């Protein structure tokens, strides 16, 4: 029981991160019907940005941790968002009216390009970051001394994720931009005829997705303390699985899918072999695609006549 609880805490933390990345997949799919395979790399770039800004801020002598975190958060979000915007601009927008396969291939190309660029610029060796937030709260102790604990960092990750998701949901439901996004999702051409600037709405979608991925990148840097140029690939596919599990195109679905994937991975690693955690995750992708392609919260695709 105690062991289960501990794995649940770990799984929730992991799931929060996947959920943040999954939002980017699901939003872009919703609005332009394309899987942005470079999104995992955006998350990786976000993680690198975080490390770079932590080191820079340290050089400038900023030592107070909360302020450091806040600065890194905003800087990483801003720079990664610029990446997201640029990728859409140069790799996807020119292919807007091309057959569906073209932007997909372009996305895979972007993904490889970003991986290699970061490998060249930052080196192939893993980049460590000394732990910045330490300490934990012990929730309960078993007779044999096993303790269930939640670290401050885990609390921060979960709180920040929940806050971001809430703010984001509010934006989609309440603001003109969110309404325009939903309208573009349903009928892009019609939205344009009502005066919605579709190109800008799509750009902003990429910007939002990328800044959420940057937050996820920052969390992972803090959580694991080490990153390399290849982390985007696996994390990206896991987040994609989360988006598919929740129902691609559905925002609550992406959040829910992220949590489920995170928990499954943590449980699998806790009770079976941790090397096989990914096998479990990707088996889910296969099963969902076979038995419930529209996902948990997705609407089944309706054939237009």
């Amino acid at each position: 029981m105690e062991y289960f609880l501990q794995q649940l805490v770990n799984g929730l933390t992991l799931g929060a991160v996947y959920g943040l990345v999954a939002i980017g997949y699901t939003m872009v799919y919703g609005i332009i019907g394309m899987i942005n395979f470079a999104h995992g790399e955006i998350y990786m770039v976000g993680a690198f940005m975080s490390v770079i800004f932590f080191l820079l801020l340290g050089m400038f002598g900023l030592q107070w941790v909360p302020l450091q975190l806040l600065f890194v958060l905003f800087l990483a979000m801003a720079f990664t968002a610029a990446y997201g915007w640029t990728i859409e601009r140069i790799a996807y927008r020119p292919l807007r009216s091309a057959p569906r396969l073209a932007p997909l291939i372009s996305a895979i190309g972007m993904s490889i390009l970003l991986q290699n660029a970061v490998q060249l610029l930052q080196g192939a060796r893993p980049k460590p970051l000394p732990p910045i937030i330490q300490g934990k709260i012990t929730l309960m102790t078993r007779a044999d001394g096993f303790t269930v604990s939640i670290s401050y960092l885990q609390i921060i990750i979960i709180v920040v994720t929940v806050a971001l998701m809430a703010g984001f949901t509010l934006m989609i439901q309440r603001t003109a931009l969110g309404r325009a996004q939903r309208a573009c999702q349903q009928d892009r051409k019609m939205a344009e005829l009502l005066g919605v600037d579709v190109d800008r709405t799509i750009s902003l979608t990429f910007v939002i997705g990328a800044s959420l991925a940057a937050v996820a990148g920052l969390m992972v840097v803090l959580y694991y303390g080490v990153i390399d140029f290849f982390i985007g690939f696996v994390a990206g596919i896991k987040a994609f699985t989360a988006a598919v599990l929740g129902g691609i195109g559905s925002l609550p679905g992406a959040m829910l899918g992220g949590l489920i994937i995170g928990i499954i991975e943590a449980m699998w690693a806790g009770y079976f072999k941790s090397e096989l955690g990914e096998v479990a995750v990707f088996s889910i992708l296969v099963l969902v695609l076979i038995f419930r392609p529209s996902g948990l919260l997705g609407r089944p695709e309706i054939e237009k006549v």
Partner: protein
Amino acid sequence: MSGGARTPLLTVEHLSMRFGGLVAVDDVGFTAYDREITAVIGPNGAGKTTLFNCLTGFYKPTAGRLALARGGGTFLLERMPAHLIARRAGVARTFQNIRLFAGMSVLENLIVAQHNRLQAASGWSIKGMFGLPSYRAAEREALEKAKAWLERIRLTRRADEPAGDLPYGDQRRLEIARAMCTDPVLLCLDEPAAGLNPRESSELAELLQDIRDSARIGVLLIEHDMSVVMRISDHVVVLDYGRKIADGPPDAVRDDPAVIKAYLGEDDEDELPPEVAADLGVGTAEGRP
């Protein structure tokens, strides 16, 4: 509306649209006037919808000019992207096959149409997210306008239902209301009476006349239902095989031999079933008021 001074609203000059070897619109020119209902009629494949698609930025015309007068200035529609045609020039349209945002609520469909004003007031969504007063005021205004339209098309009770769940006739009216929420100066309607029963199309005709008279805008109407066309249009343009074959007040167009020929063929006039002839208002006494 005729009788007073007519102000030209849309001037179409030498408009042509070719798709490869097919000439869908061939050197068409006409003028639609402000505060008038201009009907564009013609047999299937005459180029009516292509004309609309050129007007609203779906297609770039192969040749020609589409000049829209608004507020003392002139907008050349053939040079503008679709969202600016809607936003700056003030052209709104509806479709033959209804294109509502089926998954959004009835009310939201009307609010999306006011996106521009709201987006401007929301300061790139930052103010909107925190609900600052200036944005809230703009949103309240948008909401009021949407509600006024819901009242007018009698859908207030169904405001929060998904638009896709409405009956067909209501969806047609909602689409027109949505187009009107963009504050257009020219409203383009592509077969708004298609699929409506006689009572509904009579209501529609009233709604369109009401829009023309109270919103004081120009209406451009593609319609096959001749009873609607003859009843409400101030001015009729007839296309056939992409060319304009007649242009004038409804009565004159109805009696135009070229129009009768396009609709009925040259030699078969006598063999037409009486109800078709009546629809067109030719050869029968009751067709002529």
